């Protein structure tokens, strides 16, 4: 599980190769799918469908940025789907209550940071294993949301609310947000002090401590950042449809975690990039769309995605053994 005391001592170059190797596998798979399916059904490449694939799932990729950081530090968060559900409902409720729009969009970010900073504090200073803590948090958020809202949908949202339906430079806003945030986060994690610290803590806790990194403060910081991305994700999620269902999107946390892992983030910590996670999100969306366009029964969708995840994980293991 998360606490593996010994880690294989790959060098930095080897680690970088492992991370990027997986990214290339996913990228190759996406391109192959696009070529294959467009032969079967040319409408697959229509602008409307491309928007669905790239923009409709952007909120997952944005949440995956924070999850990538959490997993790289050697932790996990199974409550993020519930948090996104709660924050989307908060945004919708404030919008209906007539708050100024900039506050409506800002509130989920602030609350996301606050909740996850508290979670990070409990993990770092009260030594509660992150999987246990976030399992508990999942129950609290999921149950609490229904207790407070009664499960009622939010429908009469003001017209100015729908941020995710806007365009920037002729491109859907979620697509732009996803791309900018992913690239910025990848650059920041590779070249800035705190970004490098995340890898240091995840790859060797004791060594990180020895060179004077505060592991506890890093953990709280990473969880807080993760909360920020969950907040942004929630705003994109809430504003792309005309209703907010006031429930936790089922299995969202699993989709996000799986995207990170397929994208090359090692669950043992220390390895991975946010670009891989974003590509994996697009990979899932492409598969889903491809199945619709090739008339595969929707009921087999989950089996196909599950099977592909299995194959990707096993291929990754085989490739790493080949390199070792």
């Amino acid at each position, binding site marked *: *599980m*998360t*606490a593996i005391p*010994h880690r294989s001592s790959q060098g930095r170059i080897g680690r970088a190769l492992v991370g990027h190797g997986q990214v290339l596998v996913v990228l190759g798979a996406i391109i192959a799918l696009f070529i294959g399916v467009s032969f079967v059904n040319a409408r697959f490449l229509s602008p409307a469908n491309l928007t669905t694939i790239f923009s409709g799932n952007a909120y997952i990729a944005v949440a995956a940025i924070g999850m990538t950081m959490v997993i790289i530090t050697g932790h*996990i968060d199974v409550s993020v789907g519930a948090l996104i559900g709660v924050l989307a409902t908060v945004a919708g409720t404030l919008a209906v209550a007539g708050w100024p729009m900039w506050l409506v969009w800002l509130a989920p970010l602030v609350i996301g940071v606050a909740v996850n900073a508290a979670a990070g504090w*409990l993990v770092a200073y*009260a*030594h*509660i*294993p992150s*999987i*246990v*803590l976030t*399992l*508990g*948090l*999942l*129950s*609290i958020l*999921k*149950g*609490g949301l*229904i*207790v407070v809202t009664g499960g009622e949908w939010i429908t009469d949202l003001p017209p100015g609310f729908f941020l995710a339906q806007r365009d920037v430079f002729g491109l859907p806003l979620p697509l732009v947000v996803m791309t900018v945030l992913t690239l910025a986060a990848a650059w920041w994690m590779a070249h800035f002090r705190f970004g490098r610290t995340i890898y240091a803590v995840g790859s060797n806790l004791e060594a990180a401590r020895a060179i004077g990194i505060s592991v506890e403060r890093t953990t709280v910081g990473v969880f807080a950042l993760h909360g920020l991305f969950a907040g942004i994700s929630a705003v994109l999620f809430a504003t792309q449809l005309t209703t907010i269902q006031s429930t936790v999107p089922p299995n969202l946390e*699993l989709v996000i*975690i*799986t995207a990170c*892992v397929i994208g090359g983030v090692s*669950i*043992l910590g220390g390895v991975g990039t946010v670009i891989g996670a974003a590509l994996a999100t697009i990979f899932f969306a492409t598969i889903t769309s491809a199945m619709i366009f090739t008339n595969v*029964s929707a*009921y*087999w*969708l*989950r*089996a*196909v*995605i*599950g*099977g592909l*995840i*299995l194959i990707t*994980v*096993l291929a990754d*293991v085989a490739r790493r053994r080949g390199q070792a």
Partner: protein
Amino acid sequence: MSPTSGRLNLLLSHEAMLAILLAVTLLILSLLSDSFFSTANLLNQVRLTAEIGLITLAMTLVIITGGIDLSVGSIAGLSAIMLGLLWQKAGLPLPLAAVTSLGIAVLAGLGNGVIITRFRVPPLIATLATMAFYRGLAEGFSQSRSVRGYPEGFYILGQGEVLGLPTQVWILIVAAVLVGTALSATAFGRTVFAIGANETAARFSSLPVDRVKLIVYGLSGFMSGLSGLLLVSRVTTTRSDMGMGWELDAITAVVLGGASIFGGRGTVLGSVLALALIQCLKSGLSLAGVKADGTIVLIGLFLIGAVLLGNLMDRIAAR
């Protein structure tokens, strides 16, 4: 690894704490409501919790080895669907269909074990993937259509009584005694603890690490399959979404029961006590008019609070 006496004391106190908490909860509930503390109601509560209970038993072993199994709910759903399809579509006699679907559940669990031991995929990732895959198979095979109209005799599993007690009570008692004995009094059980405490050391001690892990995940598959069949018999229908979220309920019970999520520590008794406590809370709160969602919130707080308290006690004991 033989647990030190200090740790043993802590374990005992954790279980004692749970037992006291359970007694207090029972007392409060019996004061709040006349109908709660009747034999009939208590037996009915066991009936309702048997499905999660069987999975919790296997999950205890999985977590003690330092692993986790997120696919249990999906395997339960898959075995329920296979039962319905083999009986209705393939025309197998119901007992044969039940045994076959149990066999499929065991294979699904062994599949997890093979991915984890042969390919060295971390259990969290392996079972995350099979959780989607097995659920997908259940949806695909069934095309999300339900199966109903099982013969009367089948309902004895989920609704009937044997020797005056609900069938599930017997199944749960037998399973708990078997798993508890295997864990605490056999070489297999000691290997389970050894793997969780230090897998590398266990391998160097030439313990059959991979074989024991395979058995543990196979057992998890079997218990999940059995739970699926019990649920079908109790609610008289088969649906592909059966067992969704069971993995979280089982993991919560095991962790609340005092097992370490990092492995090497945990008992069947602790898990069973925690399970009973959770079920009492659920039914008690619903008697008090709290809806199921409010109960989920409390269970979440309970889980975090229990671990916080445990850590605190560990720190005091270390002084």
